[in-house]
């Protein structure tokens, strides 16, 4: 790698982190328009974060050191994942972007959130944590298996950049039942993991129905800013993974200007399409009952399992 490549890598890594509030802004904008509203500017999330960074933190007197640590753990996890995720051209730390490690870094984020929800000692944080646990027991295995399916399908090992490259190189030949099933499982996982409708309502105002927001209820100021950023990053990373790993066609395979330009254009289109899909999904269905979620998540789990089985059977 020469200096130019390194610069490019760092650039795309920074871009991935920086656009995540924008993506959230775009989803919110589309959703607002679907509700016949004008909606906030797509840059509003940046303003929100800027404001939160300037505010003081109000911490519960029952909260321990871990409460203060959770935002940092979350941010660290998400930045690492952003570095591993292939975006325009491979991940920044491509040689170390191990898929299993990625899943476990997600677990790290989730675990910190769940434990953090129990800080403070009110009923809401625990309620959020307990629901999150119920969901994650089914989500995480589905996520693991759907990504592992790709690893097994391509047979290039566990490096996500290699997997992405391999599917990309195979072109249309890579489209197989396994890929499509795994993709479907991943989409459900994406929606659930990012606690969006129908699993959770990201805009809810009701303390009794919250999952993700319930765990965030005690955070404020900088802590909240970091947690929000981490959530936005998580969504962007998932969308990017869907776009560059499950359906990677168009992503640059060489470092030529033309390839990169195409890749940038393609990833923008992909992200917009996925954002539109999420916004549409959130607009047309209502939030599920808490105990209907497992059915849906089990479906995702079953899909991912079928994907992997189809790999060995077909």
């Amino acid at each position, binding site marked *: 790698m020469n200096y130019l490549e390194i610069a490019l890598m760092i650039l795309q890594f920074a871009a991935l982190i920086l656009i995540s509030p924008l993506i959230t802004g775009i989803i919110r904008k589309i*959703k607002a328009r*679907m*509700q*016949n*509203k004008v909606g906030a500017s797509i840059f509003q999330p940046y303003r929100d974060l800027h404001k939160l960074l300037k505010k003081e933190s109000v911490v519960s007197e029952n909260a321990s050191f871990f409460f203060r640590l959770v935002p940092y753990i979350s941010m660290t996890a998400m930045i690492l994942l952003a570095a591993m995720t292939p975006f325009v051209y491979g991940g920044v730390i491509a040689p170390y972007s191990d898929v299993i490690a990625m899943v476990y870094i997600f677990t790290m984020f989730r675990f910190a959130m769940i434990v953090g929800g129990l800080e403070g000692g009110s*009923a*809401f944080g625990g*309620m959020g944590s*307990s629901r999150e646990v119920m969901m994650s027991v089914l989500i995480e295995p589905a996520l693991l298996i759907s990504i592992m399916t790709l690893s097994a399908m391509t047979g290039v090992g566990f490096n996500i950049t290699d997997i992405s490259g391999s599917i990309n190189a195979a072109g249309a030949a890579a489209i197989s039942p396994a890929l499509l099933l795994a993709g479907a499982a991943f989409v459900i996982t994406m929606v659930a993991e990012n606690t969006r*409708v*129908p699993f959770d*309502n990201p*805009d*809810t*105002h*009701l*303390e*009794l*129905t919250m999952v993700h927001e319930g765990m965030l209820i005690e955070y404020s100021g900088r802590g909240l800013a970091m947690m929000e950023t981490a959530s936005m990053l998580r969504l962007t990373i998932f969308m990017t993974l869907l776009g560059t790993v499950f359906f990677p066609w168009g992503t640059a395979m060489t470092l030529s200007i033309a390839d990169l330009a195409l890749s940038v254009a393609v990833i923008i289109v992909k992200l917009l399409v996925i954002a539109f899909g999420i916004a549409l999904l*959130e*607009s*047309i*269905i*209502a*939030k*599920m*009952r*808490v*105990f*209907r979620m497992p059915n849906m998540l089990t479906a995702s789990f079953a899909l991912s399992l079928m994907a992997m089985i189809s790999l060995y059977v077909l």
Partner: protein
Amino acid sequence: MIVTDTTSCDSDLLAQYVKTYYSDGWRMISMFASESYPGATINVLLRRGGEIMRITSEVVDSYPAVAAQVPAASLFERVIYEMNDIHPDGHGNLIPAIYWRKGDGHPLQKRPYDTYNEIRIPIPNNPIRGTGVYEIPVGPVHAGVIEPGHFRFSAAGEPILHLSIHLGYNHKGIEKMMEGPVSKNRTYLAERISGDNAVAHGLACAHIMEGEAEIPDRARRIRVILAELERIHNHLDIVAGLCTDSAFVVAAAYGAEVREELLRTNRRIFGSRLLMGNIVPGGVKRDLSDGDMSELESAVMKVGFGAKKLDGYIRKTPSIVDRLETTGILSNENALRYETVGVIARASGIRSDVRAEVPYDAYGDLSFSLITRDKGDVMSRCAVRVDEIAESVSLILQCLAEMEEGEIRTDFKTPDGFSCGLVESPRGELVHSADIRDGRIWRYNIRDPSFVNWPSMETAVMDNIVPDFPLINKSFGLSYSGNDV
């Protein structure tokens, strides 16, 4: 209307009397103490169809509780105990209604008292214990834009094992403020008992003030229009609110849009979005011009279509139907046992509506059908509301079509005696009653439908899961302010 049918009895026999009337099919609609220092009069208002009667009983500072014989009296006696310091012996469950109180006295007592002290009554714990059972305190500061009230759930996980509702945060002493010389502008205060039911409360107050006075026909029709407009916007708010609470955002936004159009029409024609200030004793404040009438006609028809469309969105989307059906069931037996009124009762299969049973204003001349459902779940309540919107639209159109020229106000003198005003508010049977002595309101009692409906929610949420509570609460659509007065 003036209540002339009065029976007096000894305080020891009060419970017996009420029970006898109950077995005759009478139902308690209100009960309060009117203090005369020393001593007080307990008034029990009973209704059977269109008949209303009053039982009075002189007490000193305690009497055998009626609740022991007639459970429906339990709530009223709690309030009597707290507001007037008259102890119902053998009541058994005197949970306070107000938690902070200024002074040693009781808000409705007539004798002066020291207001310096502050009394804090702790909120009682839920009567359920066991392994892993915890309490979820919600409120008085809720997460949504709603009024203050404290809900205390007991749960061991998601299913609700017990719910206690503690209200009183909205207590502003309205009943006390209502006392004083009879004045026309009391309706302004009455409207602010529950601002979203301003017309209903205003009407009930006006009915008391008017006594048996003859109200011009045009005013009576405009009153019906106002009352039905209010019903429409309340029902729409709740149906849209159900969509919001289940994150069905597009339909919710559509519902809000339809409602907003109606509120704007209200403002253009009646000068107030929530129709405040339109009911005055003796008639109404504003007349309708021909232009107003045609605007109103097209506006309510649009709202009617809008409500239908919104209902269609809900029915055609399985995810929200799944959410609403079988949630928060209030069985017919429980609805009867708790003597619920209004939409909630009708959704549980009880045919009760003041408009039909004790027609007031122009309702006697109009035709409308009573909407009922029998499942008693959130979906039924939603359906009743949607259908009632259509009925309201038809009522308004009837009024507009047969509107005759004429006066909109009449002069009258408020008679002394015991009056009561019965109105079907959007929430249900609303009762105001007043003891008027020498041109002064000696005691004014407000019984919002929410007051009798709140306890029924405690049973409707049982065994539902905690995250479904906001939906159930929304579908009941009860007032906190009207309950706490």
